[in-house]
């Protein structure tokens, strides 16, 4: 069973200095209400792991504007000039990771792999500081797993057991992050009773989800 919480209570689970994974791609599939609530409560010095920096004051942009991010692991920040400014000013430490590598590193953290061998980024700046492993006559970067204290994800439908169903391109990195954090908080658009979601249609099994927050039902 996942616990049902209201937005404010769930937001308080994100503590200062913690590492937070945030689902979504350019806001689509991002837990927008959770992010707004977290921006309000000022848990700072966060390390954020996500696809992109979204837009100013939207999605992850809420945390950027509130000055809560100390470090970020992302694949792209070009849509958020505020983020670019803070990184250039040295206020946020940024690690840029190819998106596919980011996804596999998060997956590796969630599925218990010690690392994965990936050729993406060979011969580029991505190589820097990484071990190169040769296997079957080819060279690969050893990419290490990523995990977080909290994952904030978003789904279209959830039940009280924590089972989630995503819609459209909002699925993106959410199902991967659901496996890779000690505490998983899912913001759902619609909350339905247990048994209403066909076990064949579940996209993230409830066993991975600790806390459910529903837009329409604040607790």
């Amino acid at each position, binding site marked *: 069973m996942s616990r049902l919480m209201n937005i404010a209570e769930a937001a308080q689970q994100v503590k200062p200095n913690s590492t937070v994974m945030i689902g979504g*791609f*350019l806001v*689509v*599939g991002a837990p927008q209400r959770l992010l707004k609530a977290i921006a309000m409560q000022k848990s700072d010095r966060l390390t954020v792991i996500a*696809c*992109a920096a979204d837009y100013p004051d939207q999605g992850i942009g809420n945390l950027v504007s509130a000055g809560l991010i100390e470090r970020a692991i*992302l*694949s*792209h*920040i*070009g*849509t958020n000039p505020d983020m*670019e400014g803070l*990184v*250039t000013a040295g206020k946020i430490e940024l690690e*840029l990771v*190819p*998106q*596919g*590598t980011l*996804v*596999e590193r998060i*997956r590796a953290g969630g599925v218990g792999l010690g690392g994965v061998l*990936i*050729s*993406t*980024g*060979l*011969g*580029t*700046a*991505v190589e820097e500081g990484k071990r190169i492993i040769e296997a079957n006559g080819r060279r690969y970067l050893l990419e290490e797993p990523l995990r977080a204290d909290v994952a904030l994800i978003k789904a*279209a439908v959830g039940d009280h057991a924590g089972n989630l169903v*995503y*819609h*459209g*391109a*909002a*699925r*993106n*990195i*959410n*199902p*991967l992050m659901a496996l890779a954090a000690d505490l998983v908080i899912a913001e759902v658009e619609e909350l339905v009773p247990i048994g209403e979601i066909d076990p064949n249609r579940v*996209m993230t099994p409830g066993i991975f989800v600790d806390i459910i927050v529903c837009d329409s039902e604040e607790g």
Partner: protein
Amino acid sequence: MDKTTSREYIARRVAQELHDGDLVNLGIGIPTMVADFLPAGVNVTFHSENGFVGIGPSPQAGAEDPEIINAGGQFVTILPGGAFFDSAVSFAIIRGGHLDVTVLGALQVDTHGNLANWTVPGRRGPGMGGAMDLVTGARLVIVAMMHTTKDGRPKIVEDCTLLLTGAGVVDLIVTDLGVIKVAPEGLLVQELRSGVTMEEIEEKTTARLRFAGSVLR
């Protein structure tokens, strides 16, 4: 040659490189236009690296689904027969060799097929997003771009000076001046756009160019 026509020339010429049944990823800008110029009888499936295959036309105003966007953040649609999936599957398609063609822009391309498209000098780059994955994983990597920068500086160089997106990854370069193949021996001009001379393309290119027999004739 006005700019619109040049962009159209590039998109149309790239479209001719696609084969029926191909799975194709189009980058932002000129590459996106390729979809409009597919030759008759060539049906391809378009991949959106944020999580689906089967990109359809732009939705009618008011009919947008807020959760169906392309990798550039624009509202699109999904065609019947398409499928949504998570990011792991989406990049599995790219990295696992399931993507036939990727078409993307560049800031610099060089003789060795090196590609730079994610940083500009004097300014921190916005990040590589999925570009490094695309150029590493796609079976065929086509660069579609204007031959020179807006202020006329060559983008096809002997050795890239900007940070690389991929090393030795580019197969074909299509610009407003023609079509250049990245061969083991270097760059080979396979076609010149009508009205473009060998002298013009050489003048606007820093890298050494060779010309295919069909161009010399």
